[in-house]
């Protein structure tokens, strides 16, 4: 496994992630328009549209129940997960290269990302 090989794997992963996330958001969007198209859209004041799922658990439960807004949020969550997965793949790559220095550096970055997602899960 060379650095270039790691990067090529990552690039393919990132593209797939964006395509899948985009497709989920699009599908959720069409469904959302069909279900809520005639409602009023008011985003002038923050908090006025507070019907969005915020927590990973809410999003997943809502998407399984096929609520259109939750399906869009699931696409967003997949998109956020894509770069995080990218760092995880780099970690595997550096481990295979037995590059301890960069295993440490990559683990720190991954830890920070997981922390930010997890603190969100706790509602923090």
């Amino acid at each position, binding site marked *: 496994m060379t650095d270039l090989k790691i990067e090529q794997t990552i690039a393919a992963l990132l593209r797939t992630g964006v395509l899948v996330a985009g497709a989920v958001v*699009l599908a959720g969007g069409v469904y959302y328009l069909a279900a809520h198209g*005639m409602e009023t859209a008011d985003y*002038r004041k923050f908090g006025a549209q507070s019907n*969005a799922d915020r927590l990973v658990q809410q999003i997943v439960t809502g998407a399984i129940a096929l609520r259109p807004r939750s399906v869009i949020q699931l696409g*967003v969550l997949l998109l956020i997960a894509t*770069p995080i997965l990218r760092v995880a793949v780099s970690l595997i790559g550096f481990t295979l290269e037995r590059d301890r220095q960069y295993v440490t550096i990559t683990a720190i970055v991954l830890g920070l990302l997981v922390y930010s997602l997890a603190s969100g899960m706790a509602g923090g």
Partner: protein
Amino acid sequence: MTVAEFVPIVFGASLAAGFLGSLTGLGGGVIVTPVLTLFLGVDLRYAIGASLVSVIATSSGAAAAYVRDGYSNIRIGMFLEIATTVGALCGAFLGTRVPVSALGIVFGLILLQSAWQATHEHQRGKTAVPPDPLGERLRLNGSYNDNGVQESYAVHRVKAGFGLMFGAGAISGLLGIGSGSLKVIALDQAMGIPFKVSTATSNFMIGVTAAASASVYLSRGYVNPGIVMPVMLGVLAGSMIGAKFLARLPVVLLRRVFAVVVGVIALQMIAAGVRGKL
């Protein structure tokens, strides 16, 4: 306005912003936010949440092209991502506490800086100082293929670059933008890394930085599906179209024209912030 009217309008505006962002090299996020707030009256916080999500999409989508060129340096990127990620988390936490009018003013200033940077001829970072021993220890030095010639480079001022990256991450988290122009300054001007390597590495870092702060914004309700959907799809489509046109259009001229437009938008953003109209 009904949802069925709002979504196509926001999609169209985001498409245009993504297209311009890609042509000017500013990125779609930094353009879509003022368009949403100034022209469509969207609350800055909803705009920031939506723009941040679109930043992850465009940066991840463009990564393949950068890797194909072989310019990006994964070690430099990963090492500095420690700084940008911590910065992004600080910025996002700060952003949820700072008054919206102040955010608008900072946004306008950063927009002005980006527009200025996009139109000024690139000047090579000073490499008068010797290569940083820290760069050697972290094995950041590398080489790239410049028009058929393999050029090797050494990294300078690692600590300064690391500090600047913290700042770039904080701005990215605070304003929901990719802050690619600040990242390139850190890589290219401070660390003396060749421009092509700097831009490619910066693109690779943007998605990770944005993912850190997007998690915070998602949990705080800044990411609203009704607005994020048209913005993300619009910016993504717009920047893909822009990338296709990039080779065929007189980019230098376009950049100058659009920089003036972006400069005017930036001033409006500052004015709106000062008058408390955001």
